[in-house]
């Protein structure tokens, strides 16, 4: 690592933070409302949530087997935001969403999210703490435990968002046998390719981090999505600049 890399990292962090705060402001949101491309997975998920509320069935959110102390934790954090939003959207249902994870820290956070939503809807007394559970500590035990949990609880839709590996195939196969809707997204390329073959809808690449914004979450989610777009254009320009520089023989 060169001596300038941490400095560049700090500049990128400050620049991104500034943009997120800027686009989160009410003035900017009103003056320049965000316009995002259509994400069919988000539309179908909203529909699945509506159907689950009407049918009296449950939505299962799976956060994968990553941990908060892993470098891949951002996907699980996006999963927690999605869980929060799904719990809000399904708040009129008798059956709150269920969440499975493969690490203790995510289990505690997901339980906290469900408790917070139950508190907001004055249904804390009816909340089952077992709805947020760690089903296993190794990838395979996690997947098998999650399949068993979803079969137990009358699930009609499964949302897999987080750090998964090849074991996600077993999870999706369990959901397929139940005939439930499956939306999946992961930071892992292996998991994404498996999701593409097995899930009804797959979130590719950064779409995973955009899902909370598409479900109409807080302003910060929409702001960070705009920032992602800006950063993507900057990356494209840098790549094109590098290619042109190389072609011109300057580097």
């Amino acid at each position: 690592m060169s001596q300038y890399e941490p400095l560049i990292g700090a500049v990128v962090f400050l620049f991104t933070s500034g943009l997120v705060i800027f686009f989160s402001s009410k003035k900017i949101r009103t003056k320049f409302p965000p316009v995002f491309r259509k994400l069919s997975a988000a539309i179908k998920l909203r529909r699945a949530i509506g159907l689950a509320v009407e049918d009296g069935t449950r939505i299962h959110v799976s956060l994968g087997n990553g941990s908060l102390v892993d470098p891949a934790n951002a996907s699980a954090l996006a999963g927690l935001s999605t869980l929060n939003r799904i719990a809000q959207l399904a708040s009129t249902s008798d059956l709150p969403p269920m969440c499975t994870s493969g690490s203790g820290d995510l289990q505690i956070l997901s339980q906290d999210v469900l408790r917070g939503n139950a508190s907001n809807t004055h249904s804390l007394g009816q909340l089952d703490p077992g709805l947020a559970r760690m089903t296993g500590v190794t990838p395979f035990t996690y997947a098998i435990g999650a399949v068993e949990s979803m079969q137990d609880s009358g699930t009609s839709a499964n949302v897999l968002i987080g750090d998964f590996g090849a074991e996600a195939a077993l999870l999706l196969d369990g959901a397929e046998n139940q005939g439930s809707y499956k939306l999946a997204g992961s930071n892992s390329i292996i998991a994404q390719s498996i999701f593409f073959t097995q899930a009804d809808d797959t979130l590719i690449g950064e779409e995973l981090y955009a899902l909370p914004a598409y479900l109409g979450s807080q302003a910060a989610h929409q702001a960070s999505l705009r920032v992602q777009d800006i950063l993507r254009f900057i990356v494209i320009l840098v790549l094109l600049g590098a290619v042109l520089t190389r072609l011109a023989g300057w580097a």
Partner: protein
Amino acid sequence: MKSPLSVLVAVLSGLLVLAGYFFPFPALIAIRTPMLDWAVTLAGIAGLVAIINLIVGVHLKRLREAGSKRFFSVVVIITFLIVAAFGFYLGPADPNFQKVVTAIQTPIETSLMALLAITLTYSSLKMLQRQRNWMGLVFFLSVILFLVINSGVLAFSAEIPLLQDLLSGFHKIPAAGARGILLGIALGSLATGVRILIGSDKPYSG
């Protein structure tokens, strides 16, 4: 209602650890290192809490309900108690204890791996039923193409320069695609991390 104190503690802790990474001054490192150690310890305790929640909140509760799965919960609880008792008595690093646990765990996970291979083969065959669009077709054709290329059937290409160049070019396509996806994931991770570090997204209630 989120507690402002817990949000403040979370945001300040995150910013201090990040600052210690960007600017490795001795004072910042002195704060950052113990904070990271605490985080790892807390994650370990969280694991213990989650296991107790699984045993008490899920399996013990299931014992009170009628159903065929009650038996499996009995097995889980008894196994947990035996492993925990021996683990505390002998210590988790004891070679005999590790040998017994591994001798049970490895065959089970290996059988699941075999099951995974069958599941993946079956879902690959069923994929075109689910993904009836051009992306599905491209994915399917790519899988077939790379299976053929990597199978060794085209080993004779080493003698034909043009074919070898073509295959070498094909090998670079997945790497390019993966890089594109990883760039998107990196940007998404950055935006998610920033959102949490500045306190505008709080996946905890405090």
